[in-house]
């Protein structure tokens, strides 16, 4: 029998956390952001979306990693790469990624 071989580098690391994502009210933005989170190796534990007075949306997601090269700072950058995502940041933690 062949043993299932996985690169140990990409085992679930137990990374979990909350992200606050600000989105423009443009069709496809919400699904694009949620899809990015799933494709980059995270499961949702909780999702809240509310509209702000300026028309943008605050999306709060509680996520947990499912295995992959996971790093919430990288995920935030990948989300911010999406058009109509204004910002993405970890919440509930003080520590931010260092540049160097």
């Amino acid at each position, binding site marked *: 029998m062949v043993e299932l071989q996985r690169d140990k580098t990409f085992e679930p690391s137990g990374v979990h956390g909350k992200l606050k994502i600000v989105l423009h009210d443009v069709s496809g933005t919400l699904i694009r952001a949620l899809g990015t989170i799933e494709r980059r190796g995270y499961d949702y534990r909780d999702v809240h979306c509310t509209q702000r007075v300026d028309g943008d949306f605050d999306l709060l997601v509680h996520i947990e990693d499912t295995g992959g090269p996971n790093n919430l700072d990288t995920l935030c950058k990948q989300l911010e790469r*999406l058009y109509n995502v204004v910002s993405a940041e970890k919440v509930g933690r003080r520590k931010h990624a260092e540049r*160097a």
Partner: protein
Amino acid sequence: MTTATQFERQQTKILANREPKSGALLLLESIAAQGVDTIFGYPGGAIMPVYDVLPKVTSLRHILCRHEQGCGMAAIGYARATGKTGTAFATSGPGATNLVTAIADAYLDSVPVVFVTGQVTSDLMGTDAFQEVDIFGITLPIVKHSYIARDPADLPGMVAEAYFIAAEGRPGPVLIDLPKDVANALTTERHKWRPYPKIKPEMGQSDYISKAEDLIKKSKKPLFYIGGGIAQGDGVQELRDLVDRTNIPVVSTLKGLGSLPSDHPSFLGMLGMHGLKAANYAVQECDLLIVAGARFDDRATGKLDTFAPNAKVIHLDIDIAEINKLRKTDVYLDGSLKKNLAALNPGEAQCENWRHICFSRRDEHEWDYKSPIENMKTGGVYAPKLLHDLSRRVDRSAIITCDVGQHQMWVAQHCYFDNPKDHITSGGLGTMGFGLPAGLGAKLGAPNRTVITVSGDGSIMMNIQELATLFRYDIPLKIVLLDNSALGMVRQWQEVFFEKNYSEVNLDDNPDFAMVAKAFQIDAFTITKGDEVDDGIERLLSATGPILMHVKIDTYENVWPLVPPGRSNADMMER
């Protein structure tokens, strides 16, 4: 590429024109206003309003390919050869889904292409109407951005933004899905499009440039690891200047080939799964890896946690999401590669001993161009030697496009590249069927340059219908078809990793490819012997029209070296 200021000026001009026009005409005029001159497309029901007005926009040349996938890949070839944004059209439903592979290819190789798909009328969307698919939803993970046009008055701004986004920063594909009623509707309105919100930083912070320079100065074994971002970021000359200033050895990914000329004294070759031994050993032994426009792709790194195990990392990339994604970085410089490479000035690296080790190894592992296959000694064609000879005989500005498989790796290993844009290969997605349409797109974009497509017998069958496009437009593409009567790379893996259990790789019932080409009215000939190669290359290169050279090669020829999947690059297998 359009700058943010130019984008704003275009918007102002667009808004000033209030003639009544249909959405279809607004779309085409807006595309033409972006400087687009060539569109690759295939008409159909939902996109007919666009084709109805296409003859009115005379500055647009439409190339009718014979499959929407061909359109998409031709647009990619055109974009990569010209540095402009490509454009491809298809209708709704199957037309749109046939574009999907090309869209994914453009996404993974960061190629700027705007794809326009027809869509059923707005009132039918969501009703499972005839030829309706949710192409917007299907392509969400593989586009840089996408739109569904809901109002013809949005189209001028939407098109301007689409071309801006496709080319800005890290380039990529953008999709516009155009419902038929929106294309048909007349409007005098023009909606203002909000200013494009995300402009990438121009260059990294100056203190990080100093930190990077300090790391380089302290390093005893520095190494550049370069990728496709060098060409995408227009940083070829800046890279060459930096390499010459520092004398640091260089390894390249598949997409980075040509950023340094293949015969540059500091160039060690391609790294990774089919990389050169000197390149892979250098990566394993270096103490500083300067990564420029590369993304630690698994085909380049092998088993990630064994990659450059002793090295600190400086990472230069325009896409900050690539920094620390797979490998922890010690110093990073985001923003324009061109500007960051120009700003780095650490002086000549103090690494003479390291250079000696690297280049002695390079000389030791030079290719010998003798086939390891016994029966080739009876006079068969050895593909690596053919590609080496072809590459040296063609002019240095020639463009080579390839398909995917063994021949793709042989091209990377044995062909000479003077510029990364001369090598058009499907690096990220690895799309069989890419070579021929990409070649025709490249030739249309660069009509004064020699363009050669190297393909395999498996790959060419995936888009062979584009031979008809070559004939229709008399595109003088030169095709080298390496035919080993097998899906060669899969066969090689079955030989090496699956105990020679050959499963569904035998193609010994291939058609006579020269006859197939002739049926499409393309000049073609076949060679089977090594002593026919010289004359074959001569005939190929001297042809004035499209031509196909069908080359029979041994089924059991393999690509070496080979790093087994999931293993360290240090574990290279050899013939």
